[in-house]
Each structure stands twice: as structure tokens, then as C-alpha cells.
């Protein structure tokens, strides 16, 4: 990086400042939702879940439960006819006529203790008429499959989602570009493969927690472990038929989200229950078992890829079909399938493309947002096919990626001109760091080593007009208070916002506070903490607010000192004049103002800066071709290379090293960027080796930490390297774009490619458990 650019970057941008709020987190003082004290009036909710994957509800008898002492409310779907849904309003708060998966919330009770609430559930009789379930997305897409949502045609839907009433397909994204059929004959090498990526769960260590209260005036307050206080306010208002302003959502600290605490899931249940408790607050805390079905899960994906290249390794065509198992409701998931549609080629320039991304209802738990929003699933197969194409065409797998990857100015799959991107550099960096092409000796004679690479792209997937807002207020001690509506999930959003506010205003980082917890009554609007959009979108709003406050301070001082604002600056919290060399700390100015130059009265007053950001340039895409001027705001790109060792006797795969390079535009806080890359890598690795919601006939077989294993310290490689590439984004704060989700996108494919390099087998379906790998080696004749 040139020093010239560096000089324009003010402190503390680019500095690894310590996280805000860690003092509270290491002492146990941090308040998470379940830590809030409500006293003796608090009631406890429990939920009755459907025992069937698909059935009609014939009758519900709650009379015995209602008579049980200590029971304060029993709430069923009959009480709440409204629909919930972010992009497609396809679900009720509680089931009404039909249950659609094992775990579907049928009714809820509130009682003075959890024990009584559980006892009450035992006293309730529900009669069902069992229906044939849909257990697989590809089967579910067939015209003769049992219908899960016969009313699909009547649901309200966003104008960029295309449901097919009379089928289980709730969105069909079509992409048609160039001439695929004509392109195959020009290809010297063609690869065709099918992959299956199972459902997994987010597994935040803090289970979902929500407390709701309706007061006598009809005001609703919800305290929730939430990524999306404003979206929850909006969705609740919609479903309950009340105004947004009568819903207040307060979001305390959150113990991990990864997408499952975005949108709304169990929070609506407890709000509904609280409508019947005469103003008493009600708490719902999911058990770890419920966490696997009452909150969102990641959709499953059945994917078909066909791709071909010429003898120089140039990819000429792709034909991809994605069947997404969206689960019982696809209110959020339809947009995952759209994102997979407009990004369907992965980060490659491909002239001829045909792709269909189908969102299909199944009788499985509800799919929602999960770190990567469809990209890890889609890249799992895609990046293995590119690898295979390289081997078959006799081209190095790293070279084929460098040849074909998107570069500035190229036309992406939707016709959008690619912005500046450091993907080529990321590929080079990871190849160099992993010593690509050099095989290292295995640690034992019965082991084989291999290296693999995969690359990725991902754009924030959101409505075109998702907005952010912020305010910046200055106190008489010089403290800067930043109001914002996004959440710090642990990714460090508050720290990064404080750095941006400090830089834009010209004050020390240590003097900036974030106004938290986010409370929709007092905090400025933010769409949701998802899509890796905060650093960029909320960052722009915070910078705008801080710049506005700065302008107010400088205008005031210029008038009071009778100087040109151009000669004034704020440095380290002090207003300085480069001309008169006067100085005054802003703390003396920002609340009480300044005397007029002639001493006849006062100027100024309390300073509050305000700022907002909303992208205005995203266009719609053609429903038949997926083509348009600008499909997304931007793409973050990156590359990962790994080294693995496979045990021939057991099939056990050990990840020895992981090298990642991502183009983040500008690292506002490099240590936090590295933390995202490391955490994402291990979450991706965990999904590659261990994680699967094992579903048999619609029933999950492993809903506990004993049977659903996630990576521990001894699984994670001790050699993780994070390389930060910075090719600035034109509309990002100091060029920054997001990095939260991206690090787990290429990981499964990189590991699979390394397994291939080690032992010559292609794994079509994660997790690559020891058993599966061993059986694959056995089948391939690699072991006997």
C-alpha cells in the first residue's frame, strides 16, 4: 500500500483496538437476555410441538390444562390468524389447521413455574390426521408431491420472489445467459456431478431467550437475544395487526447468532402467550433440544452441476440446478435461493449459463439465514467441480481459478459489471502461504497428506433498500455517545463503529461509547444485523452522523472565532485553528455553546449529529433471465487453502493448516477481521467434518450436543493464517466491505479438494466423517 493512501486514513482506522464491553464479558457482568431480572411476577412459557412431520389438526382440548393451578394462559393458533414472514408471509405464530414438521409449535402455556407449564402440556389433548410428508426437496418439487402449503397462491410476497402456486415451489429463480446448449460442443472437458448438503444448525452457545410483556394499554415489550430488533418489531406488528410503534424490542447482549436470531422465530410465540397474562411478563427459554427445531436451521441443498472448459482452461458454460429443502416455512429461506440464483456461477466469469434455483417446501424444520446465506452450501459442490475440471483438463487447480475468476470490469452472471476486487491476489496469497504444489510427508505410514483450495464470493443478500441510521451526541465531558440499531453479536460491530465515529469526528477512541442495549424506542433504525452489512452500511450511517456533528462544531467555532471553517480542525477532541493557532477542547463547546465574538449573547447549543445510509442503485432482475443492471451492492471475495491428513486405517480426516485470504476493502480493525476469519474457518471445518441434522422420516435423530458434535479445541487446526487483502469499495467507509460470513463459505470445498489430493476420492456430501471417508476409500479400492 502506498504511503499516500495511508496518510488519508485517520486514526484509529486500521488499528486493532481492544473490543468494547470485554470488561463486562470477562467478569460475568454482561447482561444477556436470561440474566434480566423480572421479579416474582415473571411467568414461564413452554411450547407443545407437533409430533408429526405433516398432519391436520382435528381438535385441541385445553380445558384440563387451563384448570391446573398456576397456569395463567393457554394460547393456540385459533387466537392468532395473522401471518408472519420476512419475504413471503407463509406462517402463523402457532399452527392453525395443519402441522408441517416435527417440532412445529402447536400451542403454548404460561405458568408460575416451568414445572407447572410442563405439567399443563401433559394435560392437553390434540387430535391429528396424519398426512403424507415431503422429505426431500427434489421429490417435493415434482408435480405429484403432497402439497404442504395449498394456500401458497394467497400469501403476500416480495416482488422479487416467484412462488408457483399449486406446487411446493415457493421461489423459482431462473438465470439464462448466452447459449449453453451451443457451448458444450466447444468444451474440451466437461464435468457433471450431483451433491447433497444436509441440514445443519447454527448452534449459538446461548440458546434463544425471549421475554414478553403486554401492558394494559396494549403496548408490547419484547426482550430478546436478537440480531434484528427492528425487523422483529415490524414482523410482530404485521402478524398481530398492531402498529409498529406499539411494539418495543430491547436487545441485550447476545451469545452468538450466525443468522438464527435474525428475522423472527420463537420470539413471536412468547409475545402471543403474553397477550393473555394480564400484563405479567413471560419468559421462553429454548432447551438445547428445542434449539434444533424451534429456531431456524440451515436449508438442505441437492445440487446438480455441469460445467465445461476449453483446452486453455477457460470455463465456457455452466448449467446448475439447485433444489433447496426450505423446510415447513420458507418465509426467510426464499431469499437464500434467490441469492444462490444470482450468484449461481460462484466467483467466475462464465459466458453461457443456465441455472435454476428452486426453493421447495419440505416437512423439515424451518430453514432461515445461516452464516453465508446459501453460499457455503452452493460452493461445496461448485468448487469441487471446478477442481475436477482442472484435473481432467490437465490444468493446475489454482491456475484454473486464476484464469476464470471475476476481475474488475468483467461481466458477472447477472450482467453486473464487477467492481474492483482483490480475488486474484487472494488466490495467489493462499497458494503461496500453503506452499502449493509441494507435498509434505505424512506423520505416519498409514496416513496421506493433501492440499486443497477453494475460492468464493458473496454479496449482502437483502432487500434493495435496506437502510441504516445513526446519531452522535456529545456530552459535557467530551464523551461521544453513538446511537445505532445494529447488534454486536460478538463480531465486534460496536468496536468498529466506535473507531469510525472517533476517526470521522476527530476524537480519541477511548472517548466513544455505544448507546446499548439497542432499544427500538430510543435507538435509530437499522434493518437487521445480517448479510455482513453493518461495517459497510451502518458504518456509513455512523460516519455520516459523526461528520454532521463535526460540521456543527466547526461551524459554531468558525462563527465564534470569526475564522474560516477551512482553517479549523478537530484533533484528539480539541478544536484547533491552523491560522490563529487557537485551541479549545470540544467538551467546552458541545453542550453550552460559545459566547458571541462581541460578547453580546451566545452561539450554538447541544450538538447532535445524524446520519443515514441506504443503497439506491440496486435494480430488479428479469424474471425469466435473471439479467439486470446491478443485482447486488457488492461482492466480498476470497480464497482458502488447507492441508489435511487422512488416516487410511480409520478414514479420519485431520485439518492441519488453514490459510485464508479475503478482500475486505479496508480492515477497520485487523484483529477483529482475523477473528472473523478464524471463527468462520472453524465453523466451516466443523460443518465439513462433523455436522449434520440426521433426519429420518422427518424426525431428527441427534438433537443434543452429545450426538450433534461441533468442533472443539482439539479438532481445530493450531495453524490458522489470515491474510487481509484491501481493494477498497467505492461506497464503503474508508473502502470497507463485510467479512462476517465469508470465511466459512469455501471451507467445505477446500477440505474436500484436499481429501481428493490426499487419497483420490471425491466426497459428494458433507460431513466427511471417518466412516464415510473410510467407506469411500474402500469402494475406490484405496484400502482393503
Amino acid at each position: 500500500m502506498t504511503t499516500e493512501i495511508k496518510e488519508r486514513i485517520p486514526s484509529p482506522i486500521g488499528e486493532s483496538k481492544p473490543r468494547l464491553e470485554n470488561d463486562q464479558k470477562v467478569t460475568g457482568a454482561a447482561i444477556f437476555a436470561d440474566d434480566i431480572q423480572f421479579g416474582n411476577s415473571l411467568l414461564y412459557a413452554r411450547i407443545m410441538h407437533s409430533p408429526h412431520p405433516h398432519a391436520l389438526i382435528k381438535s385441541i382440548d385445553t380445558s384440563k390444562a387451563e384448570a391446573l393451578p398456576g397456569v395463567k394462559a393457554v394460547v393456540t393458533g385459533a387466537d392468532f390468524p395473522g401471518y408472519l414472514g420476512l419475504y413471503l408471509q407463509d406462517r402463523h405464530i402457532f399452527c392453525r389447521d395443519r402441522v408441517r414438521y416435527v417440532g412445529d409449535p402447536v400451542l403454548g402455556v404460561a405458568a408460575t413455574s416451568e414445572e407447572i407449564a410442563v405439567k399443563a402440556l401433559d394435560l392437553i389433548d390434540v387430535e391429528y390426521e396424519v398426512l403424507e410428508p415431503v422429505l426431500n426437496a427434489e421429490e417435493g418439487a415434482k408435480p405429484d408431491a403432497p402439497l404442504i402449503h395449498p394456500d401458497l397462491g394467497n400469501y403476500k410476497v416480495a416482488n422479487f420472489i416467484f412462488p408457483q402456486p399449486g406446487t411446493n415451489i415457493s421461489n423459482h429463480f431462473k438465470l439464462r445467459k448466452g447459449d449453453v446448449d451451443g457451448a458444450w460442443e466447444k468444451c474440451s472437458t466437461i464435468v457433471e456431478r450431483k451433491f447433497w448438503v444436509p441440514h445443519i444448525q447454527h448452534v449459538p452457545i446461548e440458546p434463544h431467550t425471549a421475554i414478553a410483556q403486554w401492558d394494559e394499554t396494549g403496548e408490547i415489550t419484547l426482550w430478546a437475544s436478537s440480531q434484528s430488533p427492528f425487523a422483529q418489531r415490524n414482523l410482530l406488528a404485521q402478524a398481530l395487526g398492531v402498529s409498529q410503534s406499539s411494539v418495543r424490542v430491547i436487545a441485550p447482549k447476545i451469545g452468538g447468532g450466525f443468522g438464527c436470531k435474525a428475522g423472527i422465530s420463537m420470539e413471536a410465540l412468547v409475545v402471543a402467550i403474553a397477550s393473555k397474562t394480564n400484563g405479567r411478563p413471560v419468559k421462553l427459554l429454548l432447551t438445547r433440544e428445542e434449539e434444533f427445531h424451534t429456531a431456524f436451521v440451515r436449508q438442505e441443498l441437492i445440487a446438480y452441476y455441469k460445467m465445461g472448459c476449453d483446452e486453455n482452461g477457460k470455463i465456457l458454460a455452466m448449467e446448475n440446478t439447485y433444489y433447496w429443502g426450505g423446510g415447513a416455512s420458507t418465509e426467510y429461506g426464499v431469499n437464500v435461493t434467490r441469492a444462490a440464483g444470482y450468484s449461481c456461477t460462484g466467483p467466475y466469469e462464465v459466458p453461457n449459463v443456465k441455472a435454476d434455483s428452486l426453493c421447495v417446501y419440505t416437512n423439515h424444520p424451518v430453514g432461515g439465514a445461516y452464516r453465508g446465506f446459501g453460499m457455503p452450501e452452493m460452493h461445496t459442490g461448485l468448487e469441487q467441480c471446478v477442481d475436477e475440471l482442472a484435473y481432467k483438463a490437465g490444468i493446475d487447480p489454482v491456475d484454473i481459478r486464476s484464469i476464470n475468476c471475476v476481475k474488475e470490469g468483467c461481466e458477472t452472471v447477472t450482467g453486473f459489471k464487477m467492481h474492483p476486487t482483490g480475488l486474484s491476489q487472494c488466490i495467489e496469497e493462499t497458494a503461496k502461504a500453503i506452499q502449493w504444489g509441494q507435498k509434505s510427508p505424512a506423520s505416519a505410514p498409514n496416513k496421506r497428506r493433501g492440499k486443497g483450495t477453494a475460492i468464493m464470493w458473496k454479496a449482502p443478500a437483502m432487500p434493495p433498500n435496506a437502510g441504516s441510521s445513526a446519531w452522535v451526541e456529545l456530552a459535557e465531558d467530551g464523551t461521544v455517545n453513538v446511537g445505532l440499531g445494529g447488534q454486536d453479536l460478538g463480531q465486534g460491530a460496536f468496536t468498529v463503529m466506535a473507531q469510525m465515529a472517533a476517526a470521522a469526528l476527530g476524537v480519541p477512541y477511548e472517548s466513544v461509547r455505544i448507546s446499548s442495549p439497542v432499544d427500538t424506542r430510543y435507538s435509530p433504525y437499522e434493518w437487521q444485523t445480517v448479510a455482513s452489512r453493518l461495517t459497510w452500511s451502518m458504518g456509513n450511517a455512523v460516519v455520516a452522523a459523526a461528520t454532521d456533528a463535526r460540521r456543527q462544531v466547526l461551524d459554531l467555532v468558525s462563527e465564534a472565532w470569526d475564522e474560516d471553517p477551512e482553517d479549523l480542525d478537530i484533533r484528539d477532541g480539541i478544536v484547533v485553528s491552523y491560522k490563529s493557532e487557537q485551541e479549545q477542547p470540544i467538551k467546552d463547546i458541545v453542550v453550552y455553546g460559545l459566547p458571541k465574538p462581541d460578547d453580546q449573547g451566545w452561539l450554538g447549543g447541544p450538538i447532535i449529529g445524524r446520519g443515514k445510509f441506504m443503497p439506491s442503485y440496486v435494480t430488479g432482475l428479469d424474471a425469466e433471465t435473471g439479467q439486470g443492471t446491478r443485482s447486488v451492492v457488492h461482492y466480498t471475495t476470497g480464497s482458502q487453502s488447507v492441508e489435511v491428513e487422512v488416516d487410511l486405517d480409520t478414514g479420519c480426516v485431520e485439518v492441519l493448516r488453514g490459510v485464508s485470504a479475503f478482500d475486505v476493502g479496508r480492515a477497520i480493525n485487523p484483529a477483529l477481521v482475523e477473528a472473523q476469519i478464524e471463527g468462520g474457518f472453524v465453523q466451516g471445518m466443523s460443518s465439513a467434518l462433523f455436522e449434520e441434522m440426521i433426519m429420518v422420516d422427518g424426525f431428527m435423530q441427534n438433537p443434543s450436543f452429545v450426538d450433534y458434535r461441533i468442533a472443539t479445541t482439539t479438532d481445530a487446526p493450531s495453524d490458522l493464517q489470515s491474510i487481509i487483502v484491501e481493494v477498497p469499495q467505492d461506497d464503503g467507509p474508508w473502502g470497507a466491505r463485510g467479512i462476517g460470513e465469508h470465511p466459512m463459505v469455501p471451507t467445505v470445498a477446500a477440505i474436500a479438494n484436499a481429501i481428493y489430493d490426499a487419497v483420490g476420492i471425491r466426497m459428494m456430501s458433507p460431513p466427511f466423517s471417518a466412516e464415510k471417508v473410510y467407506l469411500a476409500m474402500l469402494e475406490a479400492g484405496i484400502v482393503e
Partner: protein
Amino acid sequence: MTKLFKLSLTVNGNPYERQIEPRLLLSDFLRHELGMTGTHVGCEHGVCGACTVLLNGDPVRSCLMFAVQAHGHEVLTVEGLGTIDDLHPIQQAFWEAHGLQCGFCTPGFLTTLVPFLEENPDPSEEEIRVAISGNLCRCTGYQHIVEAVQLAAEKMRA
């Protein structure tokens, strides 16, 4: 009505006496009876380690124990390790070395590490990884946690 049990124990050096239900979990007792919400509950089945506290100096999963089992014993929770003005070196190291993100798992890591670092003042990376392999963290990928432990060991040796 279940017969209540008169529990007396020491938590973070302070004696407490409470009438409790015999089946009350130690984690719930600490969080709800004593209002010490620094001990977190992630699974309630003994796997995640978030609820780890020290019982007479040894790490235990407070979600797997009844409070009555702590009768007459000494419990140490994260609140007893140090305060914001006077942090334990392990707390200090986790803060400085980015040993956490959301922080929900952190109290369990810290309590697990206190006896470990007291007994192993100069642990290898491998030993550190094994010592905390029973604590789940979904955010960090563990690398910065391991580095924080190395820093903590250094601080404690000094």
C-alpha cells in the same frame, strides 16, 4: 409441596444460607437464587462447559449438579475471579488477546483454566488445547483463546 432443604455454602468467599427445593440445579441456584448470572447455561446436559464453576477448587458443571450437593462446600464463580478494576490475569489476558467474541462461553473457559494454570504454569499449546477441549465456543475458532491462555500463563508466572 416438596420438603425444602436448608442449604449453606460459600460462594466466592461469602457464606450463604437458603431454603431450597432439593432438585434445584446448582446453575439455577447461582443464577436465580443468588442472582449471579455470570455462570451461563448453554446446554443443560453437561457438554458445552459454559456453566463450569469451581467446587472446592475443582471445575464442575453446575448444570449437572444439584445445589444441595454443594452443601458445606466452597463454590467459585466467574464473579469471584476478579472485578473490573482488579481483573484476574486470566481475565486480563482474554480481554487483551481477543480470547472472546460473544463472550457467552467465556466464564466457563475462565473457571476451567484457573486450576489448570495453577498446576501447569508453563503449558504447551497441546496441553492447553486438551485442558479446554471440554468447553465449546462457536465464535472464535479457538486460536485466539489458546493465545489468551498462553498470555495468561505468562502473566501468572510474572
